[in-house]
Structure formats: structure tokens, C-alpha cells
């Protein structure tokens, strides 16, 4: 039997013509797979929300500070029209560590006019602001207690939706909901960021409800097991200008075995 010539040895420079042809063919095949793969993975992603996080860009907002129970600034956006902006700390933390430092100086905050410089987060009519340094807070000493918002009782209701952390959901992360994001939402809410139920009303419009415990106090650790899962949440609804609140017992949260309606955006 005669000797066949072609045998590839990596450390020899030369490569037989058949080997060369085969490798070229394989590379072409891989290029096609790469193109196809990039198209499949790139184009099949769910649409991302049109939310905004103005990271690296500071905005100053001025309003009356209140905690009912979550820290917010009541800002007059038009004559007799108010928006309550949720105040957040840096990273996966509430604003409370910064406020604690301010309060240590003996400063009362509720009812006072605060000017906060931070990064805005906004989506679907809701606005939040991230504070990165307590030095970026200036306080006017005058009290405006009479201008604090009032909550109206709306009765006992049930919503189907998903409990999210508003910082990520309204702009910092995309997606800021669902299983992929659940761990992050748990960290954020565990860090004091208020939980929000993202749901839809009967007309299919997005609706957001801040969650508190049954006494209206902040709820964080107790709700961690329910975050990022489709759920039916029942409680007492309260309306405070542009925000709704739901006072609930965690026993009244039912995790649902279905796809969350908030995925369809």
C-alpha cells in the first residue's frame, strides 16, 4: 500500500492542501453560525422599557419632605398639581443612611423644604431620585406641615402583578423585573428600597402601588420571598396624589404559577 502524503503537525508551518481546504470550510461554517447566533440571540430579546436613569448627570429638585412611610419629596409641577418623588440612596440602599446623618445634627425633616441634587430615574409618569452624598441635600428651616399630602382610603382590593424594586424597574436596570432580576430586587428591597407592585388596570394600563405592612409601616425583609414572581396581592388601598399604597399582610400574597402580565410591554 502506498504512503499517503497529508498529515497535519501543528508545529510545522506547512499545511496540506486538503487540510487547508477543510479548515477554510470549517471557518466559513463557523462564521455563518456566528452571524446566525448573533441574529437569533440579539433580535429575539424582549423589548426593553423606555425608562431612564440619568447616571452621571445631576438634577436639583426642591419639594416638601415627608415619610408616609417612605421618604419622598412633594414637588409642585404645575399650579395645584403635585408629584411625589421617591428618594433613594446609592446602590441597593434606601436614602435612610444619608437622612440619619442629617438627623444626627438635630435637624427635623418632615414638612421642611429640601433641595436634593442627584440622579433622576423616571418611567411611565413616576419619578425617583438617587442621592449619592448627604452634602447634596440643602434644607430650609421653615415648616410646611399643612402642605403635606393626605392619604385617602380606597377599600380592600386585590391586584395581580409582580413585586419589584422601583429603583431598577423605573430605570436603573433593564429588565428590572422577572426571574433574571429577582436577586437584585431582593438586595434592593432588603437594603430598604420600598417595594412596588407593578400591575395593570382593567384597561391594560400600567399601574404601580407602593407596598407597606398592615399598619402602614415600611415592609422590606418580610416580603423578600415574593419578589420577582407573578403574584396576587390583597390589601387596603390608599391613594396619595400620584401614588397608591397598599397595606397588606404577607399572608395575603399568593404566588401564581403563570407568566407575569408585566412582561408584555
Amino acid at each position, binding site marked *: *500500500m*502506498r*504512503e*499517503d502524503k497529508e*498529515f*497535519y*503537525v*501543528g*508545529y*510545522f*508551518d506547512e*499545511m496540506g492542501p*486538503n*487540510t487547508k481546504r*477543510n*479548515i477554510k470550510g*470549517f471557518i466559513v461554517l*463557523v*462564521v455563518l*453560525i*456566528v452571524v446566525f*447566533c*448573533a*441574529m*437569533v*440571540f*440579539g*433580535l*429575539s*430579546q*424582549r*423589548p*426593553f422599557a*423606555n*425608562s431612564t*436613569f440619568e447616571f452621571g448627570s445631576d438634577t436639583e429638585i426642591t419639594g416638601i419632605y415627608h415619610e408616609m412611610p417612605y421618604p419622598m419629596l412633594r414637588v409642585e409641577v404645575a399650579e395645584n398639581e403635585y408629584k411625589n418623588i421617591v428618594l433613594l440612596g*446609592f*446602590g*441597593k*440602599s434606601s436614602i435612610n443612611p444619608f437622612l440619619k446623618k442629617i438627623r444626627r445634627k438635630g435637624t427635623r425633616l418632615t414638612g421642611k423644604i429640601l433641595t436634593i441634587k442627584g440622579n433622576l430615574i423616571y418611567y411611565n409618569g413616576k419619578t425617583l431620585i438617587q442621592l449619592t452624598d448627604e452634602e447634596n441635600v440643602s434644607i430650609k428651616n421653615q415648616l410646611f406641615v399643612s402642605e403635606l399630602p393626605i392619604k385617602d382610603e380606597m377599600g380592600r382590593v386585590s391586584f395581580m402583578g409582580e413585586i419589584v424594586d422601583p429603583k431598577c424597574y423605573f430605570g436603573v*436596570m*433593564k*429588565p428590572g423585573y*422577572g*426571574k*433574571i*432580576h*429577582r*436577586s*437584585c430586587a*431582593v*438586595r*434592593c428591597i*432588603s*437594603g430598604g428600597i420600598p417595594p412596588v407592585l407593578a400591575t395593570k388596570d382593567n384597561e391594560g394600563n400600567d399601574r404601580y402601588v407602593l407596598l407597606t405592612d398592615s399598619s402602614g409601616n415600611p415592609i422590606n425583609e418580610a416580603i423578600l*420571598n415574593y419578589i420577582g*414572581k407573578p403574584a396576587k396581592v390583597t390589601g387596603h388601598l390608599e391613594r396619595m396624589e400620584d401614588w397608591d399604597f397598599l397595606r397588606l399582610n404577607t399572608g395575603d400574597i399568593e404566588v401564581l*404559577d403563570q*407568566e407575569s402580565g408585566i*412582561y408584555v410591554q
Partner: protein
Amino acid sequence: MGLDYQFVLWNRNKKRYDIIIVFGMLFYLFLFTGLTLIFKSQTTMETLLIRAFGTLALLMLHIILAIGPLCRLNTAFLPLLYNRRHLGVSMFLAALVHGGFSLFQFHALGNTNPIYSLFTSNMDYGSLTNFPFQVMGFFALLILFAMAATSHDFYLKNLSPKIWKGLHLMVYIAYVFILFHVFLGAFQQETSVLTVSFMGLGFLSLVTLHIITGIREAGKEKQEYEINVDQWLKVCHVSDIKTNRAKICTIDNGPVAIYKYDGKISAIHNTCKHQGGPLGEGKVIDGCITCPWHGYQYLPHNGQSPPPFTDKVQTYQLKLEKGIIYLNPRALQEGTYVEPIQIEK
């Protein structure tokens, strides 16, 4: 082959291989980010990076896992095997970018250690759909790290080829972790039929390739030989072996490569000391049996690597009667000289 350990023993083919890897990776990243920025422009930079590098690592892992069986089925793919470890390390780096960014994005800047958070932020370990999929990705990354960190002949020699091979076969465990990571994570939310089908197709292709290869390899091992009065095995006619090539016969001691070269025949153990390559699928080049996987060489008459190299394999005695080759199945010590049998004209 190299006598001293160097970080990389560069040669022209390795440089070409690495250039193709780098350009291939950049091409994928460019396409993925370009398409996402054009058609899904509301994405964030963090999500873009996590997804681009995650899907890149996934694609590369499938290619890496296909190379082994492809080479067993067709030797034309052997150049892909030669520098596969660089492809593996590159895949690990892509996976590390994906894992590192994800760990920072989802677990850092919080009220606990990010690694602790990874294991405890989602405690639904008893649920399939809610299972903490990031943990699976973390374990896969640890395996890939162990493999990438030992992807050098220094570790191959010092850990021993058996342990090294065992460590690197853990890529299959990493692959299973990654499948669970993707199916219990991203695919619970990114439910495109096309993406899930594409991933399933990749898995099925790999399984099919491995099964076909396994059946073929198992068939090779089921050989029975006629035994003569001296208990020697009747292997084949000398004309069945091409010049400078070998016939592999499998006996109780494992596969043996019987080489025909320079008008002679010699037999050595078939398994290369480097990474267990099949020496019988190699070729005699410059008087040395050359392994098809990485070019390690052995002298046919004594199974020793040519000086100054020191690797040795077992040798076997042969007989030639009326053109028929007989093999003594008793292996001689590694590196034992056996007089080559002259082929009668």
C-alpha cells in the same frame, strides 16, 4: 513538543489559530451589540455586556465540545484540536466577563457580601421554575476557571495526564450546569421559541456527535484475533498497513499501534503520554511516530521520545510469517528496545 516550560510555545499555526479566535470573538460581539443597539436601542450598557459575553461564551463552548468528536470522526478537523486550549481559555474569559458583570450588577452595592448574596438572595432551591439559576452559572464558572488555570503542559505533567484529563473532562459537568443556568434563568423570562430551539439544537447536535463517536470507538474495541500456538495474535497482512502509518489492534492491555516504516514493522502502545492521543492514527515523520493530536514523537523500535525528551511508552514484539503480522500481547516495559521486523520483499 517543548523541553522547557514557556508561557506559550508560539509557532505560525498557533498564531493563526489565535488571530482567528480573537477576530471571531470580536465579530460576534460587534454583531450582537450592533443588532441590539439598532433594534433594541433601549437596552442598558450593563445588560448589553452581560448578554453579549454570555451568549458568546455559550457559542464558543458548543464549538469546543464539538471539536473532540469531530476529530475522532474525521482527521481533517485535527488542526482545530491542536490549539483548542487557547479557545478554551478565551471562552473562559468571555464567561468571566459575563459572570463578573452579573455578580456586580445583581449583587454588589447591597447590604451583604455579593458571593453570600448569590447563594441566599433567592432561596427557592426546592422549586424548578424559581430555582436560583445564578448559582449554577457560578459553579460552571469555577470549573471553567480550574480548567483555564491548568491549561498548560506544566500542569499536565505535574498533575499527571490522568488527573489533568479528569479535571478537563469536567467541562461536561460545567456544560450541564450552564444548560440549567440558561434554561432555569434567561429562558424563564426571554421565552422566544427561536432562542430556546436554537439552544436545544446545539445540545442535540453535541449529544448526537458524541453518541456517533462513542459507537464508532466502541466498535473499534470489539476486535477478536486468532491466536497461534505460541499465544501470539494474528493481526493482519503487512500489506494492510500503509507505509509510515499504523494498524491499531486492541488487546486486553489496551490498544497497540503496529507501524510500517522504512521496510520494517514495530509495535508500541497506542496511547500518547501527553494527552492520551491515539499514536496509531499518527504518522512516521523523520523516523519518529508522531502523535496526530499535538505532534509528540516516539521512536518506533523502543517507544522512547527522541532525546532530549524523556517520555516513554510500552513496546511489543512482532513476528512476520508469510506476510502475516503476529503480535505478542505481553507488553514490554516502557522504552524497551525491540528489534524491528524486516519486511521480506
